């Protein structure tokens, strides 16, 4: 008898109908069963239809809420399904789904609460624009200064989170827009164990990045700095209100429901 998948892949997507099929095909080609939920964050193209056709569950926001809110909808869905861990992956095809098993391993083995896929552990000279490179250096330095440890890719959207970690991120403290370095510092302050794993990343070929344009980059830098500063001065008990060990988890969806039926008939997830 096959076990229900222990893991859920959350794919936030907005107008990614062109790249999404490739990403979903890569996830479903993995040698173990995973549930996949695509968060249609106010898309104006065929994102939702494409995702449903590929076999993913689709949660549609009635309007655009932001990248962070889309991730959080996935975390709330995972909570209702009682998944042991969640992987977040971008819909633009920049991350390689083949890296998911290596990303999941530390969390599935309870060696970490959060596993971050780092492009810089694969290629330290990963090609990117000057502004983005400066940003990464800056946020890496800020994280090192505040957390007294190094994270090479603090803005990575390719992560695996344990149930305790994603339940924490389902709370209102999770940012609507860009949950990057500020959230990593918050998670570190809340005593979650963070590790990094190499994850290949390819340049975006289609669509438009949420960081595209000077105005978006300036706003991102400003918002991130204010948010990091607020995180530093916020008392730790604000993050520890819900103890990690007492995360409530609803029972998994009953067998025979359409969620269970949608699961691909492959082997079980890694233990």
């Amino acid at each position: 008898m096959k076990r229900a998948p222990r893991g859920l892949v959350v794919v936030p997507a907005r107008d990614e109908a062109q790249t999404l099929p490739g990403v979903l095909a890569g996830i479903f080609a993995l040698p173990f069963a995973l549930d996949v939920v695509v968060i249609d964050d106010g898309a104006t193209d065929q994102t939702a239809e494409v995702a449903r056709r590929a076999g993913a569950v689709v949660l549609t926001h009635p309007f655009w809420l932001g990248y962070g809110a889309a991730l959080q909808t996935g975390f709330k869905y995972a909570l209702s399904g009682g998944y042991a861990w969640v992987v977040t992956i971008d819909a633009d095809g920049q991350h390689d789904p083949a890296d998911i098993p290596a990303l999941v391993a530390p969390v599935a083995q309870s060696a970490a609460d959060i596993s971050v896929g780092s492009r810089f552990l694969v290629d330290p000279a990963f090609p990117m624009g000057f502004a983005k490179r400066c940003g990464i250096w800056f946020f890496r330095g800020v994280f090192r200064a505040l957390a007294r440890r190094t994270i090479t890719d603090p803005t990575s959207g390719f992560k695996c989170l344990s149930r305790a970690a994603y339940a924490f991120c389902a709370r209102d403290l999770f940012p609507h827009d860009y949950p990057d370095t500020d959230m990593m510092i918050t998670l570190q302050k809340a005593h979650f164990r963070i590790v990094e794993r190499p994850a290949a990343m390819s340049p975006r070929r289609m669509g438009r990045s949420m960081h595209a344009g000077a105005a978006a980059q300036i706003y991102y830098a400003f918002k991130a700095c204010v948010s990091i500063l607020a995180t530093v001065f916020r008392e730790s008990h604000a993050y520890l209100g819900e103890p990690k060990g007492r995360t409530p988890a609803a029972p998994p969806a009953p067998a025979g429901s359409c969620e269970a039926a949608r699961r691909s008939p492959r082997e079980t997830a890694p233990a």
Partner: protein
Amino acid sequence: MNGLTFRQKTVAVFLAIGLVILIFELIRRRRLREEYSWLWMLTGLAVLVLAVWDDLLAALSGLIGSTNPPPTLFFFGVLFVVLICLQYAVRISDLAVQVKNLAQKTALLEEEIRCQREDRSKASL
């Protein structure tokens, strides 16, 4: 330090009383909720008190280093408006979180309903 001239005082008193009456009328017609009215009321009353109480206006002018009372009245009026804007920004932030949570709930419930319908149609076959 000279106080307000009679004309300045009259204009300030009329404006302040007009503001308080307008706010009260908006509350009466249920166009403005009481919880958002108190800072506006306070603004109107503060302008009224400062306009009629020369010594207090002079003392406050001295406190903020102003040699002229009329700008002091203007200064405190602007200060209250800034506080009101801040109160709105806080409220808007709260509402943004509530709207986000509602939209997320809608997305989750929509999927649940779709699932139940699908299960029901399968069971009826």
